[in-house]
């Protein structure tokens, strides 16, 4: 971490205090340096960063359509190459909704073409910018404004979409999961990705205090805890092989404690929590 760029590239924005997404963007840009060209689709990070005349990026940065992160990255790489530019990184920062829902087609296309782009999904597990609606990366049980917790249904009834595996199934050059709770690991993965030519994908867990019902000072701790209790494994995919980068055995007590801290899970019954624990164990065995 010490040899990160001293310069800041994302500041003066309007993100909430303790925003995990803003941290993920900031650290990635410090890792990539001034020749990063950032593409951000509709979502919290573009909403807080690009309010004319308050523009928060010190490097070249552009908003894409909600679905268009990957395709715009492709165009930028192609255009800059045609202009004779080398030694830059076209990097996308899209939310979980912008990635796993509306932008999945463009992302799949870019990976399929093996375009030389780095796509970072900052996963805060819901559509935060529009007021905490469910996305396909919202975890089982979470209360959102479109999966309210009542007597009949207790929040989101579906598991998180397996986005990392979907990306890997394309035979992508490099993919990884990361967490803003393990910044050193995140930075390491960004560096590795930037050194690979072709399509790269990093999926970083980025807690949102506003949507999760947690304190502004808990973000990094929560992101680390999600890894430590086994809920969010840190993995890599390269050369056609999967690897776990930080191995943690699921721990029922730690999962319970982790869920209990978050407003979005407060309504869960004992049965729901057991379900989360068994899902986590099953997925961990699979790894």
């Amino acid at each position, binding site marked *: 971490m010490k040899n990160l760029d001293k310069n800041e590239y994302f500041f003066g924005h309007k993100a909430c205090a303790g925003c995990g997404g803003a941290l993920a963007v900031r650290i990635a840009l410090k890792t990539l340096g001034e020749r990063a060209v950032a593409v951000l689709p509709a979502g919290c990070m573009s909403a807080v960063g690009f309010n004319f005349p308050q523009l928060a990026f010190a490097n070249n940065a552009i908003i894409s*359509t909600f679905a268009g992160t990957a395709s715009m990255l492709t165009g930028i790489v192609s255009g800059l190459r045609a202009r004779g530019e080398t030694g830059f990184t076209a990097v996308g920062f899209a939310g979980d909704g912008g990635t796993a829902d509306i932008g999945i087609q463009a992302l799949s296309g870019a990976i399929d073409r093996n375009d030389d782009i780095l796509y970072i999904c900052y996963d805060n597990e819901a559509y935060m910018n529009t007021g905490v609606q469910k996305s396909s990366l919202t975890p089982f049980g979470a209360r959102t404004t479109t999966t309210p917790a009542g007597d009949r249904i207790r929040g989101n009834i579906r598991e998180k979409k397996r986005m990392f595996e979907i990306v890997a199934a394309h035979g992508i050059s490099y993919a990884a999961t990361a967490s803003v709770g393990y910044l050193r690991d995140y930075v390491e993965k960004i560096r590795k990705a930037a050194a690979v030519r072709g399509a790269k994908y990093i999926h970083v867990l980025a807690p949102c205090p506003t949507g999760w019902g947690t304190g502004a000072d808990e973000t990094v701790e929560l992101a680390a805890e999600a890894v430590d209790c086994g809920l969010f494994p840190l993995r890599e995919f390269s050369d056609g092989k999967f690897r776990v980068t930080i191995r943690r055995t699921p721990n029922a007590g730690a999962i319970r404690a982790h869920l209990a801290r978050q407003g979005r899970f407060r309504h869960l019954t004992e049965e729901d929590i057991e379900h989360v624990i068994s899902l986590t164990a099953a997925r961990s065995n699979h790894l």
Partner: protein
Amino acid sequence: MSGREFLSGNDAFAIGVCLARPRVISAYPITPQTVVVERLSEMAENGSLDVDFIHVESEHSALSCAIGASAAGVRTFTATSSQGLLYMAECLPYASGGRFPIVMMNANRSIALPWNIYGDQSDSLSQLASGWIQAYAQDAQEALDLALMSFYIAEHPKVSTPYMVNLDGFHLTHTYEVVDIPDDSLADEFLPPYRTDAGIDFNAPKNMAFSAGPGHNAAFKYRQHAAMLRVRDVVTEAEARFAGIFGRRYSGLTEAYMTGDADYIIVTLGAVSGLCRDAADALRARGVKAGVLRIRYMRPFPGDEIARELRGAKAAAVLEKDISVGNAGAVFTETAGVTDTPLSNYIGGLGGEDIAEADILEIFDDLRAGRGGVRFLGIKERIDEESR
């Protein structure tokens, strides 16, 4: 390249694009545009065009990708039609609002439902408000020439606005005629490489395509509108330059045919114009003062030209291949806003329906008989009876 060849509208257009030397093309296939992307892919493959051709997975990505390339400051082209144009619709105002001077060919085609692959103008005319310059070619030669001129106009520093060239599906895209192909070096003289300082810049980084709240939004839109209005003068400049180099002359936003003393005028656009002129000739031979006003550009809208040409006529009709359901054809609605001449509207050619010279003569008959309203060619019932 150069010389005279027997070419379809699509082939001619592809040659025009090749002469313009775009650096990035991103496109997705759809009938009747496919020939253009196939030809350009061949040119990229055989090295006659030095371009990165990106075969994207959808039209939304085609234009999103083109916006990215244009943001990098290079000449960019895409092509689509119909369902594809609507699928990329979100990106249309995005490209124009960001002032990215992308050129797109649109092969005019009907819009589902009902499904139909044949030509009408419902697709592009539904996107008049999208902020793109819109031109309509009438033949393969004009298609090729517009391919070259479109880049000049779109990229002009006074304009910096994306440009959609429309070719009537099948009637123009798939019809063969003899076309003059400009010499490469003359094409280069007409259209120098695109240079801009508005693009991504590592020495002076930019935040692009940002948000602008209520306090700033109107100012951006006003500037965009003003740039579009400047297109009229830049078209004049481009056409004078074009005539100087290639010897072929064009007439600005409209093309008038015997309208000066005409009592009855048909206003139309695209490939059907030739037929309208033939009908006008036939009527002139019988002593009827008929004329035709061809709209070459729908954006910017040639309101002044239309008002001037229709002034003094007893009646005029707009013949167009679209219907804004529940009102009238879009071209009629806009034309009615700029003229006091009694104006009626004929909706024809929907879904590739043939328009015959007899249909045009009937329109002139209706004008002379003082019939007005909105009518569908080939449909006998009157709308007011149907809707009862």
